[in-house]
């Protein structure tokens, strides 16, 4: 069913073995699993190809499947205003090397989303312009949305900052 969709067809024709169409039975959104190496190319293709034009970066987040391997899954939700299409991309990342290329060069708005994912899951985005914590403070230890971070863990106290200019 999904292969009839023009986006999926084009993606398969262009990237073939790099991607895999997966079913999403509940919200019926076209879902594609992408290999880590080609995420930037796929995003750039989706953004720049004329009749695809996924211009709205809806959401970028991560899910920690701690009992599975590879452990982390970065999830992108994209939307094309002019075509009214939506698509979900997924990339699996290994626990020992949770790095992935940034897509800030495709959508500027990915910047803060990627910082948030870094903040909460410790995923590192290669070539990100400003990879710092965003919602938590810089002295925070650990990445709290990982499933092995207990909800009641206490954080250490830290010294008062001398320099307050642009700390966070």
């Amino acid at each position: 069913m999904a292969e009839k969709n023009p986006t999926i067809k084009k993606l398969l024709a262009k990237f073939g073995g790099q991607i895999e169409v997966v079913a999403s039975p509940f919200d019926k959104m076209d879902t594609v699993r992408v290999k880590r190496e080609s995420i930037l190319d796929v995003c750039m293709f989706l953004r720049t190809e004329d009749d695809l034009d996924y211009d709205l970066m809806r959401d970028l987040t991560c899910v920690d499947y701690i009992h599975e391997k590879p452990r982390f899954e970065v999830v992108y939700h994209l939307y094309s205003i002019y075509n009214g299409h939506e698509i979900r991309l997924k990339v699996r990342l290994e626990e020992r090397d949770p790095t992935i290329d940034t897509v800030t060069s495709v959508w500027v708005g990915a910047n803060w989303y990627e910082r948030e994912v870094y903040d909460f899951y410790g995923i590192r985005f290669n070539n990100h312009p400003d990879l710092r914590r965003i919602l938590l403070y810089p002295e925070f230890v650990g990445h709290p949305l990982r499933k092995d971070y207990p909800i009641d863990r206490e954080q250490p106290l830290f010294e008062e900052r001398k320099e307050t200019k642009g700390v966070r």
Partner: protein
Amino acid sequence: MADLTKELHTECMTLQMGPSHPAMHGTVKMIVDIDGEEIHSVKPEVGYLHRGFEKMCENSTYHQVIPFTDRLNYVSPFINNVGYAMAVEKLLGIEVPERCKYLRVLACEISRISDHLTCLGASGMELAAFSVLLYSIEAREWMWELVEALSGARLTTTWARIGGVAYDMPDGFERKAREELEKVKRLVEDMRGLLEKNRIFYDRMRGTGVLEANDCLAYGVTGPCLRAAGVYYDVRKAKPYLVYDRLDFEVPLGKSGDNYDKFVVRVLEIYQSIRIIEQALEQIPAGPIAVDDPKITLPPKQEVYTSIGALVHHFNIIVKGIRPPKGEAYFAVEGGNGELGFYVVSDGSDKPWKCRCRGPCFPIVQAVPKMLEGAMVADVVPTFGMVNMIGGEMDR
């Protein structure tokens, strides 16, 4: 006499606006580098209201998450409630009854009106039009009376349930709603009269805080800010949910994406929301307000106290929770400030494996530096007012 033609020596200074500053609604800090009155750079700092929404969700049952969603956008809690409940309903594969759909639309639009009124009133006040705030608070008060009539609470409504809503409209709600909407209309007219052609207001809003359409999209900005730039994107029209496809309403669009357009778009949206509510009140059918499935919805309190079956179901839902099948669902509704999406992942247990909230304010605040490029310090206030940042939703 001093030589006035000689250039003065100036240097850049850093101004920290916030985290508790009268013009920073909620708590956010802007680090503004200024040279005289000109802005060199703006760096928003967020996270002051972070309270671990997602971590809390992952450790609560599906029904227990609903009160947390009230606190996301605390000016329009109904929309958050409904958005979350509908995302979980997607996972469960259930469809709520007709009457419930209309009730949800009604509640969402009441919330949208109060959200916009708050934004307009507060921004008016920050530009020294204090009576506008009084007008808008008065109108919002009437909206909140309707909220109170529906849910019993004014702010933390917790009104939507997975598979339905908690309470039906009380007797006389229709008449009351119509009366109060008339009053709101009159007050909004008054507010417009005070602001729209007001020289001070116009000069400070027109041409400031411009964010053009392609920038909006690149940043992921949705809602009134995107529509003010002329992009026709409203989740209610793009992917109609509930009964929005049966209701007749328009999506107001701006042209230049400046603060004035954002203001006008919000004002016109209030009228459209009033139209939607009037239609919904006319069309609303009789019938149940929740799905008839004791494994999903809580039974009415009356029955819990009087019948053993309902008591058992109540106990089961509270203690064991509901268990949607393994899978994931993304569901978006149109919130007060833009697309409000919930991405819920279930692992088949009674607690969500992941409950992500995509709040509209997060990308909008990210775009604030772009809006303020080359502007004056005084432009920060109207621009930030029209961004209408809600801390609870941005910092989660």
